[in-house]
């Protein structure tokens, strides 16, 4: 009888969960052994790419005053993923907003901090408007050179891989689990699904509502990625009494209040899904519908109303025209 290992631990400021089926070859490590190996990989990934750890590869890059810096393969991959997301989103998912994040109060890990009330934040938020790319587009001046193993960027430009790190990590672990019958890699809600077994029996993935924290529905995922971005987790109250969160408008460097408080996206990979879900939150309802139309997704409006878009609409019983109450 087929079996499946369910393995959970904490990393990257989130809960990480691995579901691993049987190996396709007897010579492969067992699911337990594979999970231990992936656990080690994720912890290493997290430690080396955290901007809150002084000893991390990323902190070393940001602290280096040289224009061109020798970087590890993992750091090059993470920065490349950030640049890919920036290109994919037309500059909306910008990896160069470290100064703005710190200015808004996100200068330490919020992994164990109690988030502020999203309802109260919405009540005091400024008028809704979609985010826009930074006209200076500093991310375009970052170059990753695999030949020389270096990263080049203008002095003073700091890089944050946090916006795309979990999606990249989920994809990397999924690649390493390719020889298992079926698997799910869940890095803080950014999920990669794969294995030949899922073609016959896809995984059901639940979508969490950002206000009620209860499932708004489930979608079937056979392969690829699904990710959710929202304002409900990394949100805090500033000393002046105003509220801030981690999704910034690149054109202003301030938290975005677009009319969308959460979005779930499907994609070919977890990295793509994460990028699309962030775009949906940043762009507001109209832009979100455009962004999510191809692969499908779910929008949660300020009111808490849930709207399913594209192929997902048929699965969870909502549609673009007929949003279902969360």
């Amino acid at each position, binding site marked *: 009888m087929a079996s499946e*290992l*369910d393995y959970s631990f904490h990393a990257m400021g989130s*809960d990480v969960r691995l579901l691993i089926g049987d190996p396709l070859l007897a010579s492969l490590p067992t699911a337990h052994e594979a999970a*231990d190996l992936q656990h080690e990989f994720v912890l290493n990934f997290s430690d080396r790419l955290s901007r809150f750890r002084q000893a991390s590869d990323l902190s070393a890059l940001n602290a280096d005053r040289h224009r061109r810096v020798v970087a590890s393969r993992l750091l090059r991959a993470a920065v490349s993923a950030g640049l890919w997301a920036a290109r994919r989103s037309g500059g909306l998912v910008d990896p160069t907003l470290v100064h703005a994040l710190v200015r808004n109060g996100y200068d330490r890990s919020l992994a164990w901090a109690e988030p502020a009330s999203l309802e109260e934040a919405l009540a005091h938020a400024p008028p809704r408007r979609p985010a826009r790319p930074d006209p200076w587009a500093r991310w375009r001046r970052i170059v990753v050179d695999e030949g020389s193993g270096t990263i080049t960027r203008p002095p003073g430009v700091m890089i944050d891989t946090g916006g795309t790190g979990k999606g990249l990590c989920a994809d990397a672990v999924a690649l390493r689990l390719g020889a298992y019958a079926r698997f799910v890699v869940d890095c803080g809600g950014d999920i990669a699904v794969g294995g030949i077994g899922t073609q016959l029996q896809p*995984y059901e*993935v*639940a979508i969490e509502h950002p206000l009620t924290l209860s*499932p708004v529905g489930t979608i079937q995922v056979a392969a690829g990625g699904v990710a959710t971005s929202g304002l409900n987790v990394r949100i805090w109250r500033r000393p002046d009494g105003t509220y801030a969160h981690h999704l910034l408008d690149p054109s202003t460097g301030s938290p975005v209040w677009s009319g969308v408080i959460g979005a779930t996206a499907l994609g070919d990979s977890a990295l793509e899904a994460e990028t699309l879900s962030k775009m949906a939150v940043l762009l507001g309802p109209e832009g979100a519908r455009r962004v999510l139309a191809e692969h499908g997704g779910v929008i949660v409006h300020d009111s808490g109303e849930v709207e399913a878009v594209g192929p997902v609409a048929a699965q969870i019983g909502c549609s673009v025209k007929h949003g279902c109450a969360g």
Partner: protein
Amino acid sequence: MAVTDARPATAATMATNRTMVASRRATASHAGAGPRRRASPAADRLTVALFSLTAFLIVLTLLVRQLPTVSHRDARPVRVLRKIYRTTVIETVWSAVGRGTAVTQSVSSSSSGPAVLPTTRAS
């Protein structure tokens, strides 16, 4: 001139009076016959039996009419395709990977998917 009804009874009038008296007697004789005349016990039992049977048939007809309605509207046929037995052992251990991280792991012996669905959420 005063007119008195002192006419002598004619033969016809007397005959009429006799007929009426006879008729009253006959009526009295019919009214008094009810309590005295009882139906036979066999006839009573037959009446009760017929009445009960009729009532039973009426109730039965009503029930029979209800049956198809219930089966179409409410009762859905339950078909058991297979029974799935799941054995799940959950344990929290200190990771062999080290660094003092706690790991929760469980193994499900069925192919019906995980007990708790993977959930996409903001983080």
